């Protein structure tokens, strides 16, 4: 197996549908692929004690996060027969209704892409040093908690 170098996964601001479309389009030349699975995390306008979440502001410990993501990627490729995997996570402010996480797996037969995508999303949520600050409409905030 060829070694995969740590690559940057962070994007400033939201991940746009046009970016996702371009990423899908780039796979049309890879004709060994039979199935793609995509997970998208979108910001919910949760109402907490009468306050509505307007955006989440993400920060990270970038050097550590990229090393950890590299480890996650290596483990996933070792476990599943994937053709490719792409991960993007937002930093900075992402408004309610916008997308902050994009995980994209592809394989010859669907099962590997589907299972690898779900496992990668779980690992990203539990293992990547990233923090979300839920900012309310009046600019007060609370720190996001992930549920498992």
């Amino acid at each position, binding site marked *: 197996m060829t070694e995969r170098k740590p690559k940057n996964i962070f994007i400033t601001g939201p991940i746009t549908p046009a970016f996702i479309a371009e990423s899908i389009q780039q796979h049309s030349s890879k004709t060994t692929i039979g199935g793609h699975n995509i997970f998208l*995390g979108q910001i919910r306008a949760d109402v907490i004690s009468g306050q509505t979440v307007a955006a989440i502001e993400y920060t990270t410990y970038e050097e550590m996060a990229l090393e950890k993501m590299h480890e996650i990627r290596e483990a996933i490729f070792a476990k599943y027969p994937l053709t490719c995997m792409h991960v993007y996570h937002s930093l900075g402010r992402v408004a309610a209704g916008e997308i902050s996480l994009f995980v994209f797996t592809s394989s010859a037969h669907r099962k590997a892409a589907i299972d690898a995508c779900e496992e990668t999303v779980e690992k990203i949520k539990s293992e990547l040093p990233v923090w*979300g600050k839920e900012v309310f409409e009046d600019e007060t905030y609370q720190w996001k908690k*992930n549920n498992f």
Partner: protein
Amino acid sequence: MKVNIILFGQLTDITGTDTFTVEGVDDTTGLTNKLQDDYPALSNSKYIIAIDKKVIAENTVLTENCTVALLPPFSGG
């Protein structure tokens, strides 16, 4: 011995800063004791510690100019 401290997420609300240096501590237990003296609210906070990006599970000896990160529970995605 000087070590570099970096903090993230809700911990920065306690310290008011995200990077500083600490002198005169030998290991992570000594360091966290000192930090909790300086910032009492830290003792009520949940966090793990990474030295030079590697998470540690028990008291660990520090080295000159190493970087100690205090990481509250992750909430990406």
